């Protein structure tokens, strides 16, 4: 598959090697997040009049899901402010690697080197989402806890253990970064093989060893690459490329398919369906149950959420794969289950884009009065306090959602066929692969129809 190396031009190379653009973006984001925490703690409790809720759950979320993840994959991770203070303390520096930092530099436990904790963390947050999204104080406390947790983990463990194994947002950004048209890879792996020092992993005077604990020559997917550009700085042979590629190339990479990532695909797809029903649907009983944390209704909602996301969705998918295996004659349905789960990644992202489009366009105009009065204290800093709520492009929301979901289904279907063909013997790829893929595509079809019903029926 053809790739265009964006890092070839000297100017781009200099830009990627310089720490300043990244630092400035991180500082800007850190300022925003810090102010959001302050606004959440000390500002008005009215969600749509408070910077914390509007900045985090409307502005940041919309930019993340609608722009950054689909285009840059883990681009956000390279400037994310959450791990920044901990990383600065860990390194004892904000820029170059010229001082000895604090921290114990312990290795992350081998048993936890997967994303199961990220899956659990996301699910835990998802159960409280309606409260988190509507209460500035809860949003602020959540941000503060995550910031402190990230700092503590950075001081105790080496590199970016928090981002790699704990961050509840990082897990899904990594999953969907496989669809991005951008990737960081080595240009010539033989150069890396003969390079004894492996400075991209160990670090040198020009930069740190890979914070994400990845050896770039072994990168075959975007999932674990945080696009921090340290390897671009530390490689003495200028052997790191930032490629423009066909979107979704990673889905067809047979190496490194794992059950924890497969489950992430189900969790994200399931959460998108539940959120769409709860937050965008007309069923007040669902909204009230999701909001009444601690009540019996909420317990039933939480149990239903878990059963759907962790049981029903993967369960029906397994039955589909099992049936496909019987049709195609494959012997290892468990491996097929894990591999074919990756075909749901495009549909999952499409579901989140469709959900976020509606949410962002309906509520985006809350941003303007907040520029004048971010704490809801009655200020009018730039004369926009009186800006009225006015949803954007409301006539286009439904058609956009329908087109996005149709595209996501098509992409998932094509991916399922290609992955299925990998799973059967090469010489019989056509028919047997299609037989294996058929029930999986029908599963995707059913999910797409459910999503269309939720969004545009």
């Amino acid at each position: 598959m053809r790739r265009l190396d964006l890092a070839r031009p000297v100017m781009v190379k200099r830009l990627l090697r310089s720490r300043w653009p990244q630092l400035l973006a991180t500082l800007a984001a850190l300022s925003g997040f810090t102010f959001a925490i302050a606004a959440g703690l000390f500002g008005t409790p009215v969600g749509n009049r408070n910077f914390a809720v509007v900045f985090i759950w409307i502005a940041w979320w919309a930019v993340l899901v609608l722009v950054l993840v689909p285009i840059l994959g883990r681009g956000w991770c390279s400037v994310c402010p959450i791990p920044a203070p901990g990383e600065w303390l860990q390194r004892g520096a904000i820029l170059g690697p010229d001082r000895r930092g604090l921290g114990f530099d312990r290795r992350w436990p081998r048993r936890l080197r997967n994303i199961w904790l990220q899956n659990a963390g996301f699910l835990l947050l998802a159960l409280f989402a309606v409260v988190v999204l509507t209460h500035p104080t809860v949003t602020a406390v959540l941000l503060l806890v995550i910031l402190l947790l990230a700092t503590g983990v950075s001081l105790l463990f080496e590199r970016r253990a928090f981002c790699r194994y704990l961050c509840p947002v990082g897990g899904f950004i990594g999953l969907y970064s496989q669809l991005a048209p951008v990737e960081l890879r080595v240009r010539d792996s033989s150069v890396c093989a003969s390079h004894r020092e492996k400075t991209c992993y160990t670090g040198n005077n020009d930069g740190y060893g890979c914070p994400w604990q990845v050896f770039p020559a072994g990168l075959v997917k975007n999932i674990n690459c945080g696009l921090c550009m340290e390897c671009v700085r530390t490689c003495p042979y200028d052997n790191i490329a930032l490629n423009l590629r066909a979107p979704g190339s990673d889905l067809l990479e047979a190496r490194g398919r794992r059950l924890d990532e497969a489950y992430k695909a189900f969790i994200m797809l399931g959460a998108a369906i539940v959120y769409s029903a709860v937050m965008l649907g007309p069923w007040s009983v669902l909204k009230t149950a999701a909001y009444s944390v601690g009540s019996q209704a909420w317990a039933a909602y939480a149990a239903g959420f878990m059963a759907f996301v962790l049981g029903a969705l993967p369960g029906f998918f397994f039955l589909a794969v099992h049936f496909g295996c019987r049709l195609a004659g494959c012997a290892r349905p468990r491996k097929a289950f894990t591999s074919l789960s990756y075909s749901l990644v495009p549909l999952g992202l499409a579901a989140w884009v469709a959900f976020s489009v509606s949410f962002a366009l309906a509520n985006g105009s809350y941003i303007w009065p907040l520029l004048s009065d971010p704490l809801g204290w009655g200020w009018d800093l730039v004369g926009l306090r009186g800006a009225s709520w006015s949803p954007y492009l409301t006539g286009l929301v439904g058609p956009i959602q329908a087109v996005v979901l149709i595209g996501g289904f098509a992409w998932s279907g094509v991916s399922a066929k290609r992955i299925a063909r990998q799973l059967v013997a090469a010489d019989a790829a056509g028919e047997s692969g299609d037989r294996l893929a058929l029930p999986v595509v029908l599963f995707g079809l059913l999910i797409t129809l459910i999503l269309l019903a939720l969004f545009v029926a």
Partner: protein
Amino acid sequence: MLRRRSDSRRRVGLGTVQSPLRLRASAILAVAALAVLLLPVPGSRQLPSYRTVRVDAEAYAYTPAVVEVAYGDTVEIELVSNDVVHGIYIEGYDLSVSADPGQTARLRFVADRGGSFRFYCSVSCGPLHPFMSGRLKVGGGGLFWRAAGIVLIGAAALFLVRWR
């Protein structure tokens, strides 16, 4: 690599449809897709009438939550707020009205855009205000049926049309 059953390449089946059949299948699917996109959906040809719909707003919910009218109907929504100030804003039509507690507000319009439109509260009414919503269905929800049709045709195309 997974074990497989041996299959005859000559048999017409999934992934092995012969070329003339593939061509025919492609043509049929293309015509079907055009039909789904262009033909009127069931329920969109009812005669227009005057409809009055009472919508109660209370505790972040509308009753009824789904309002169905025919394409071309003149619709009068009577919004009755039963607790705090609530509003109603209809997506696609860009119309809104608000009602004080215990009061009724009226919104009249001609349902001249077919499809399914969310309506939601236009007045900040409490923590769940951003999620207080309902649906206005005009003329049978054409967008859903068209999108569902395209998805079904796409699924068929995945297995019937030549594909690498």
